[in-house]
């Protein structure tokens, strides 16, 4: 019973949740419990053992008045405020007694162990403390790294959207009657190959810079127009042919606004227009897995992987050497085509308009590709 002696009492006020008001009174602490008695009536409003405390916190009520909150076992929160002589004093005393419940020993062993701390213990304490801080620092560092990564991917997306916006704007800015507007520049290049290229593409693979051609099932706009046909990836763009190998549509490289990869075998390609319906194709092909890495090389920013593709990614990363190989393959193919393209462009008398305007693959691109292939080439093919 001697342990139940009152340790200390502090005048303070207690917040009544139901009546929403503060009641003045006294907070008293015994070595095992905490009590609050009102001044006027002497009622005991709060009485709980220290062992049921979950958390003691210093908080501010109304953002001004410093107060002390104690969270009890059943998540009842007690607010004490206007503590005399000061909040910090009360906080430390209560916390001390609470911890002492765990640490105190009833026997005589107490004074022997606690009275002196050896230098070694002190040093270990220091070490443990700094270790803890370093652990926290590492966690925060990792967190920030992750944030930076997400910022980078966000920027990438912004840049890509800006590209599209830029193209649409130039299209809008040029009045429709102006014969030299970009729109009209594109029109002939859109229509011209439709006549010529069905022959040209069948004639020579190298000249047009065909990277890969695969048979595919084509959905145009809505799902009702289903046709068999083929998809051709060129250095300069994409072509979609129907079964009799006449051209349905040709996308120039810079006209493609986005490519969505739905699954391994299904992609959709879209060119956006303002004021007109978009040109969109959805393609399904058994050989799509071969095409996707090439598309990724050519349209890296415009490619959007849809949800199912997480699977695709994981499937691919599970066989890294295979992936390396396919990328290397795609890159080297692209390069070969580009090399073939350069001499042929200068030899031919009337090259396509597009080729006039810009080289199909810029010097920078080839350089980059060469680097990629070099790196891939240096590695042993299977690790």
């Amino acid at each position: 019973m001697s342990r139940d002696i009152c340790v200390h009492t502090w005048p303070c006020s207690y917040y009544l949740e139901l009546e929403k008001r503060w009641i003045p009174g006294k907070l008293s602490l015994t070595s095992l419990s905490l009590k609050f008695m009102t001044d006027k009536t002497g009622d005991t409003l709060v009485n709980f053992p220290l062992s049921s405390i979950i958390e003691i916190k210093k908080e501010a009520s109304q953002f001004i008045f410093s107060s002390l909150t104690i969270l009890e076992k059943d998540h009842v929160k007690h607010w004490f405020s206007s503590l005399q002589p000061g909040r910090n004093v009360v906080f430390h005393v209560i916390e001390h007694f609470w911890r002492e419940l765990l640490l105190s020993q009833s026997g005589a062993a107490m004074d022997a162990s606690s009275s002196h701390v050896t230098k070694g213990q002190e040093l270990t304490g220091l070490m443990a403390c700094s270790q803890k801080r370093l652990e926290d620092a590492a966690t925060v560092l990792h967190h920030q790294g992750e944030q930076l990564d997400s910022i980078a991917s966000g920027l990438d997306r912004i840049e890509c959207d800006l590209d599209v916006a830029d193209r649409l704007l130039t299209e809008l800015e040029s009045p429709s009657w102006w014969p030299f507007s970009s729109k009209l520049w594109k029109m002939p290049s859109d229509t011209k190959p439709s006549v010529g290229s069905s022959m040209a593409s069948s004639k020579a693979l190298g000249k047009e810079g065909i990277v890969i051609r695969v048979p595919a099932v084509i959905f145009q706009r809505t799902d009702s127009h289903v046709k068999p046909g083929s998809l051709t990836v060129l250095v300069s763009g994409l072509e979609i042919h129907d079964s009799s190998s006449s051209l349905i549509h040709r996308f120039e490289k810079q006209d493609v606004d986005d490519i969505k990869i739905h699954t391994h075998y299904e992609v959709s390609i879209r060119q956006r227009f303002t004021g007109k319906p978009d040109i969109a194709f959805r393609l399904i092909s058994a050989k799509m897995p071969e095409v996707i890495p090439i598309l990724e090389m050519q349209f890296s920013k415009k490619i959007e992987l849809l949800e199912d593709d997480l699977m695709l990614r994981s499937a691919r990363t599970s066989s890294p050497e295979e992936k390396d190989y396919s990328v290397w393959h795609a890159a080297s193919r692209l390069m070969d085509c580009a090399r073939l393209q350069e001499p042929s462009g200068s030899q031919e008398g009337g090259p396509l308009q597009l080729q006039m305007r810009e080289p199909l693959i810029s010097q920078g691109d080839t350089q980059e590709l060469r680097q990629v292939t070099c790196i891939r080439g240096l590695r042993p093919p299977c690790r």
Partner: protein
Amino acid sequence: MDNAGKEREAVQLMAEAEKRVKASHSFLRGLFGGNTRIEEACEMYNRAANMFKMAKNWSAAGNAFCQAAKLHMQLQSKHDSATSFVDAGNAYKKADPQEAINCLNAAIDIYTDMGRFTIAAKHHITIAEIYETELVDIEKAIAHYEQSADYYKGEESNSSANKCLLKVAAYAAQLEQYQKAIEIYEQVGANTMDNPLLKYSAKDYFFKAALCHFIVDELNAKLALEKYEEMFPAFTDSRECKLLKKLLEAHEEQNSEAYTEAVKEFDSISRLDQWLTTMLLRIKKSIQGDGEGDGDLK
């Protein structure tokens, strides 16, 4: 003095804005530039809200932001609407927590609709914090933390997700839902132990998981400890593991002296935080369960 003036001005602005909104509803106005009227009203609500803020009239500021958000919604500018709702939430937070939560929830709905899950997750955390500190409804706080962890995981930001999950685990343990806490700690521990930066804190998570096991059942704790040591060999050398072993031994002998001694030694090197103190106290109580200590503690 100055504040009162600001407040009056703000009230005037609010009234003016309301008039504009009403005007935009009339038929003729609707034909000619009804939208610009609404836009003007939005602007006015925002200005009024800022003045209320200066006057520290938080609930009025929140209300003004809310109105602005609703008008933005009418104008189909989702992004502005969400931002205004967040502003409203921040203003309400200081006066009316429940209303703040409603506003933030509205903002979250918009953000999830737009597919901006990272921001939605962030606001879920804000809501959870309000529940945690202002309203002390821990169950709801847990639910929001969990939701936010899910969103973060979906966006591949695992460290943020882990942060939320750890909060959930800490509260779950306090609410005596040990199984949930154990699962989370084990999962987070397993995730972090292979990361070069994070492996140093993995032992902490395993320690906490083992403690939760300990409260439920001593034998389970022993098995779990063995499992953790196998999974993560570095755990064996840590002080936490040694402490656990000592505690288990003491518990087996029902020796509360030895138990206290071990805890004390640990505490003398690095101070126990409140969560650990609570958990260790619960274990200690189970030792004294049949002794005289029980009567004393009640």
